[in-house]
């Protein structure tokens, strides 16, 4: 049965449709793989009974000729998505034992289309982190290790559990969310494909909020095609989220394999960082060469405010987080720690319920929004955000269709290696991805090579608003040239 877990989502879908495979078998194979891979800590909750029941219902629909686009496909769900009747914690102690009475729009659309839920995946607490080390449930181990080494590595974050589950072939795809790079950075670290769609493409309803003007849901998958198939089901209008756009959802899979001839690809000069490893520069050049030989035209572009995106993000995101996380007060749900009066109850609950990184960000957010500091910090950061977006708009106005950049400034690193003394060291992981959230654009990370120690490295493609199709077409070119990167099981 193990070979069933090596199928791509598209291959499994096609075999299910031909009825030479049942969802029950496919789901059982993945549940068995999850059980064997518990050392990775990729799942914070396994839902085998629900999975088996959903698989059985899928098989019945397939038999009736009533199959949806994702019928019978076993998926993993980041623990940030509310799932009705299934514990959802955002991997925070403050949401211990929270059982939603409703389903997030994105996951409800996956179930509508026939997908099967395997369980909830680990993530950084409230999606705040770049290594999955801030989770209340402990870190996730990457399925990848350096050649000849047993050092446990991070899968990236915040969607570290989803990335590890896909890379270790424990599921055929996973949901994830991206506020500053939380889909694309873990995808790059684990040799998987992850796309953050344009802001407003997927509904945020029922997803635990971090920074509402930046948060977007997206898929993590084994291949570009699989990500395209998943996004079609995840995206779409939703009356419950006023920032979710009323645009029809294209058939993204149809864009996979589409010619990229004549597309103008911008190479932003500002992404060439001082001290960047030579291997990163090398795969970037390699990516340029692949796109060029596929008929795309490369043009040098400038995004002059790039270096200010990360500092502006560390004002805007904590400010929004401090507001969003005000709801965790020990009254309506989650943890309550008794206090001598109501204020003390709030303060004790939040002190015990929030981990160190969340506390830091809530406090920074509170500070930059406080009287006397709002203009100097928050208002200035929002103006800088306008300039960051304008940089991209000017390039697109000059006929650039998409941009190619590295996805991360390094390969994966060891658990406990970064950010211990200075939180900013960890923040720098998102230097290439955060600009895309600040400008609301779509970005995809595609595996493109490996470093000298055999760890995967990824490239990022940034697109025009709502032009995810071009990203899938270009991503496919890179995937075809680079091949797939599959972790060898040690667990």
């Amino acid at each position, binding site marked *: 049965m193990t070979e069933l877990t090596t199928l791509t989502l598209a291959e499994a879908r096609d075999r299910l449709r031909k009825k030479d495979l049942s969802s029950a078998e496919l789901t059982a194979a993945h549940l068995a793989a999850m059980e064997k891979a518990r050392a990775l800590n990729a799942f914070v909750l396994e839902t085998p009974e629900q999975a088996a029941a959903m698989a059985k219902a899928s098989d019945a629909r397939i038999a009736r000729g009533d199959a949806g686009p994702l019928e019978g496909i076993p998926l993993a769900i980041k623990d940030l998505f509310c799932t009705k009747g299934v514990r959802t914690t955002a991997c925070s102690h403050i949401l211990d034992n929270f*059982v939603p*009475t409703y389903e997030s729009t994105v996951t409800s659309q996956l179930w509508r289309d026939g997908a099967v839920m395997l369980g909830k995946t680990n993530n950084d607490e409230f999606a705040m982190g770049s290594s999955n080390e801030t989770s209340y449930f402990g870190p996730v181990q990457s399925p990848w290790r350096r050649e000849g080494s047993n050092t446990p590595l991070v899968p990236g974050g915040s969607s570290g559990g989803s990335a590890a589950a896909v890379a270790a072939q424990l599921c055929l795809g996973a949901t994830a969310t991206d506020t500053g790079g939380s889909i694309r950075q873990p995808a790059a670290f684990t040799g998987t494909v992850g796309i953050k769609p344009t*802001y*407003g493409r997927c509904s945020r309803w029922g997803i635990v909020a971090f920074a509402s*003007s930046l948060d977007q849901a997206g898929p993590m998958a084994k291949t570009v095609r699989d990500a395209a198939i998943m996004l079609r089901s995840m995206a779409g209008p939703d*009356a419950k989220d*006023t*920032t979710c*756009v*009323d645009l029809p959802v294209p058939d993204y899979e149809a864009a996979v394999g589409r010619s990229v001839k004549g597309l103008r690809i911008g190479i932003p000069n500002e992404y060439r960082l001082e001290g960047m490893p030579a291997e990163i520069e090398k795969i970037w050049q390699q990516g340029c060469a692949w796109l060029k030989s596929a008929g795309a035209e490369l043009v040098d572009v400038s995004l002059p*405010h790039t*270096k*200010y995106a990360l*500092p*502006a993000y*560390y*004002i805007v995101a904590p400010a929004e987080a401090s507001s969003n996380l*005000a709801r965790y*007060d020990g*009254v*309506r*749900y*989650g*943890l*309550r720690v*008794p*206090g001598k*009066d*109501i*204020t*003390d*109850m*709030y*303060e004790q609950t*939040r*002190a015990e319920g*929030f981990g160190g990184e969340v*506390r*830091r960000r*809530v*406090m920074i957010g*509170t*500070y930059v929004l*406080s009287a006397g500091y709002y203009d*100097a910090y928050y208002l*200035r*950061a*929002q*103006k*800088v*955000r*306008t*300039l960051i*977006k304008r940089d991209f708009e000017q390039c697109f106005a000059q006929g650039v269709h998409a941009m190619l950049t590295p996805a991360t400034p390094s390969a994966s690193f060891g658990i406990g290696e970064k950010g211990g003394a*200075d*939180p*900013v060291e960890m923040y720098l992981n998102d230097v290439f991805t955060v600009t895309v959230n600040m*400008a*609301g654009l779509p970005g995809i990370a595609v595996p493109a090579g490996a470093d000298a120690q055999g760890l995967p490295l990824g490239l990022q493609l940034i697109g025009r*608003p709502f032009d995810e199709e071009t990203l899938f077409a270009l991503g496919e070119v890179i995937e075809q040239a680079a091949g797939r990167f599959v972790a060898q099981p040690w667990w």
Partner: protein
Amino acid sequence: MSVDAATVRRIARLARIAVKDDEVEHLQGELNAILAFVEQLGEVNVEGVEPMTSVTPMAMKSRTDAVTDGNDPDAVLSNAPQSEDGFYLVPKVIE
């Protein structure tokens, strides 16, 4: 700009997070590291630039002002740490 110990305590109070005396110094260091990092935004000329309010240009959607949900106090209270007779319970607020 950097924060002193008194400011750290004031922020913690505003954020409703209890901070122990022996945590203040460490927190002060962490917050100042972040503030030092964001300081570079001061270099940017933002003269005449509008602050971003919506990343995607869109008109705010409106819907009919009608009840679409509700009448389910049990579901609403199902995750409450303490509740009674259809109400959330909190420590005494008014003497």
